[in-house]
């Protein structure tokens, strides 16, 4: 699994102050809404009271005139009783009969006497309640005129509500400004405080992300926070973790080396047997030459025997040198490499009584761009693995199939199948993923080789029982390796 750093992701030192900012914003909105709502209610109550006082007085004054439908008296009363020097200005007052026919208005040209009050105008009023309209900046109030308990007329009063609405606006902007300043101040403070508090966490985060990307390194003492003992303890713990992980890595490498040496030992033992066999014949031939060298036929047969024995030894040495040369063989893979592998496995196959078969594309002598050294090593490891888990008398196949872009090199056995651990090693894409119990190191080394040469490793159960492990080698292998680097 790869950990990627996204530039757009907000760091914790930004997220937390941002959260504080949002929270403060939400609180500001809530407080502002409550204050404005309260102010609005207060203003409407004030308007209600003020308009009630005015309309009560007016109502009492115009009752006789309304009963007589005396337009002049009503007009004169409206004119004389027009409120002055109060906070709200009266825009217009209309007195109608119960059928909403205008008896008089303080602006007769707008509301002519004896005209029917426009329904649209009347719809702005709610009975006995002051209404504020923020769009027109007007307040509306209607009051019925009663005489002996009976409604005889109505008063419609329109007030200039601009001072109220202006006050609301002023309060709103004051709240907005104050809250904005407070929020910014608190958020800035929060930003710096949180940034300082979580700075060690960021360092830790960076190192964890690096570790996840395979670059495990300890936190330097310079990065240790001053005066934050908790964070320092965490850093120390992380560094100990890094130390132990690095030691583990070294251990793995040592084990791998030892494994290789062990494999080499096994092969050396096999080689000794291979050399020993012709050596016995060759010593006999030398004895024969010593005793009966004067006989031409005997001498020729002995020399021929010695020659074959020496050739056999030469092949074994050559194959071993090709596989275990310290510097990896830079040449391309050839048919001979498969034969060498078979030669090197011979002793182990005989010991395990397992048959080994190689299936290659006919006539092809070389496989361009496939590095011989690493592939031989991988083939050898896989085959040794397959032989080790195969039953006596079973078969192991080494097959190379070529398709358009890849060589598929497969080792197939008839064994009991792969366990969970080997399968995990094959499928894991983590470079430092090493088996906890250090088992399957051979397989792990094959995976390392694959990673090195840009090949992929896969495993599957075969229908007849057993396992097929495949190396998928790109035909343009070297370029891929170069690209991967």
């Amino acid at each position, binding site marked *: 699994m790869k950990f990627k750093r996204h530039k757009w992701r907000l760091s914790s030192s930004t997220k937390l102050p941002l959260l504080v900012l949002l929270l403060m914003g939400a609180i500001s909105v809530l407080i502002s809404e409550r204050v404005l709502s309260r102010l609005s209610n207060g203003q409407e109550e004030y308007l209600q009271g003020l308009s009630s006082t005015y309309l009560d007085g007016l109502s009492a004054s115009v009752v006789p005139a309304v009963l007589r439908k005396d*337009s*002049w008296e009503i*007009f*004169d009363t409206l004119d004389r009783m027009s409120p002055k020097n109060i906070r709200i200005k009266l825009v217009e007052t209309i007195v109608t009969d119960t059928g909403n026919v205008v008896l008089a208005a303080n602006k*007769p*040209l707008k509301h002519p006497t*004896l005209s029917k009050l426009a329904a649209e105008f009347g719809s702005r009023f709610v009975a006995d309640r002051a209404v504020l309209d923020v769009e027109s900046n007007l307040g509306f109030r209607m009051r019925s005129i009663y005489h002996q308990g009976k409604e005889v007329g109505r008063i419609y009063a329109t007030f200039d509500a601009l001072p109220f609405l202006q006050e609301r606006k002023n309060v709103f902007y004051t709240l907005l400004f104050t809250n904005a300043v407070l929020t910014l101040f608190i958020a800035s403070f929060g930003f710096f405080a949180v940034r300082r508090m979580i700075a060690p966490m960021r360092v830790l985060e960076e190192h964890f992300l690096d570790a996840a990307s395979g670059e495990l390194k300890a936190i330097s003492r310079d990065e240790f926070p001053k005066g934050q003992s908790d964070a320092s303890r965490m850093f120390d713990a992380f560094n100990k973790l890094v130390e132990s992980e690095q030691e583990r890595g070294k251990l793995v490498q040592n084990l791998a080396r030892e494994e290789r040496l062990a494999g080499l030992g096994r092969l050396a033992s096999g080689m000794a047997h291979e050399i020993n066999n012709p050596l016995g014949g060759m010593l006999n031939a030398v004895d024969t030459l010593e005793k009966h060298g004067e006989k031409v036929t005997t001498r020729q047969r002995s020399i021929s025997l010695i020659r074959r024995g020496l050739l056999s030894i030469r092949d074994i040495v050559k194959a071993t040198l090709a596989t275990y040369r310290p510097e990896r063989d830079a040449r391309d893979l050839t048919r001979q490499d498969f034969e060498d592998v078979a030669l090197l496995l011979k002793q182990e196959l005989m010991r395990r009584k397992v048959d080994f078969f190689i299936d290659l594309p006919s006539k092809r002598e070389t496989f361009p761009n496939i590095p011989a050294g690493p592939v031989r090593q991988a083939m050898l490891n896989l085959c040794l693995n397959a032989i080790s888990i195969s039953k006596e008398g079973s078969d192991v196949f080494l097959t190379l199939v070529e398709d358009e872009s890849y060589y598929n090199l497969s080792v197939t056995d008839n064994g009991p199948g792969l366990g969970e651990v080997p399968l995990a090693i094959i499928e894991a894409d983590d470079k430092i993923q090493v088996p906890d119990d250090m088992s399957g190191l051979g397989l792990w080394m094959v995976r390392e080789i694959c990673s090195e040469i840009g090949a992929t490793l896969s495993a599957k159960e075969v229908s007849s029982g057993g396992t097929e492990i495949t190396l998928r080698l790109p035909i343009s292998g070297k370029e891929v390796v170069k690209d991967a680097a």
Partner: protein
Amino acid sequence: MPSIKKDTSFTRREFIIGSTILSLFANSIASAASEKTIRFGLTPVFLNEDLELLSAITSYLEEATSHKIILTTRRTYQEITALLLSEQLDAAWICGYPYIKYQKDLELIAVPEWNGRPEYQSYLIAGKDRKVGNVDDLIGDIHAYSDPDSNSGYLVTNALLHKKGTSSDDFFKKTFFTYAHRNVIRAVASGLAQSGSVDGYVWEVLQEIDPKLVSRTQILEKSEFFGFPPIVATRKSSKTTEIQTLQKALFDSPNSASGVKMLKYLRLSGFAQPDVQLFDGIAAQVKLLDNGS
């Protein structure tokens, strides 16, 4: 036998007390004689709510008559006429129409002169922005009258409509009384009424005093000239010295500073000798309407 002597002489103390009481009583009688009052009524012909004007009238008349002047104002012509006829007032400045109505009980004292003549006109006015040419265009209006006992503010228009074969109720959609000529102008200027009948003298004077108000009206028709609203007294009181003194004071008003001040307030040039014929026009209209009704 002892004789009883009846002492009929005053003691000094009794004399002093008695003469003091007599002196106080005599003084109070003398004071009452010199503190005669003239109760003078004003109809809302003009700016009767103007306290400075009322003060100027009182000051001049008290100075000129040496009597205490009690000015009485009422909202309607009818109230002033009733007070006069019931002798609760000694004299009053009323309209020509009630004078004609109660001519047998009333005596002309003086007739104010405006622009040098004791006559005035009635104006038919309408809102400034209305496109109207004559009285016929006012049909269906809401019309403002001044007072049912006013010549210029009611009678003239009714007589005019009567001559046209109609009546105020039929011709206008609605009429109302404002009980002051100035209020007629206010009603028309504001648009409360589309037209109104008003005293020409008041309209002209207000044009000078309150041009903004008057500028929102236009004169549609001017009537013929009628006798200016006169100062009258009951026939009984007109013979008294107080009223004769008042009459003389009115005639002499252009000759004193306070008189001129009063006339200036009233925009009048003086007071003319009573001439009943000045009111023949009003009488003719009353007769016309009486016959018509």
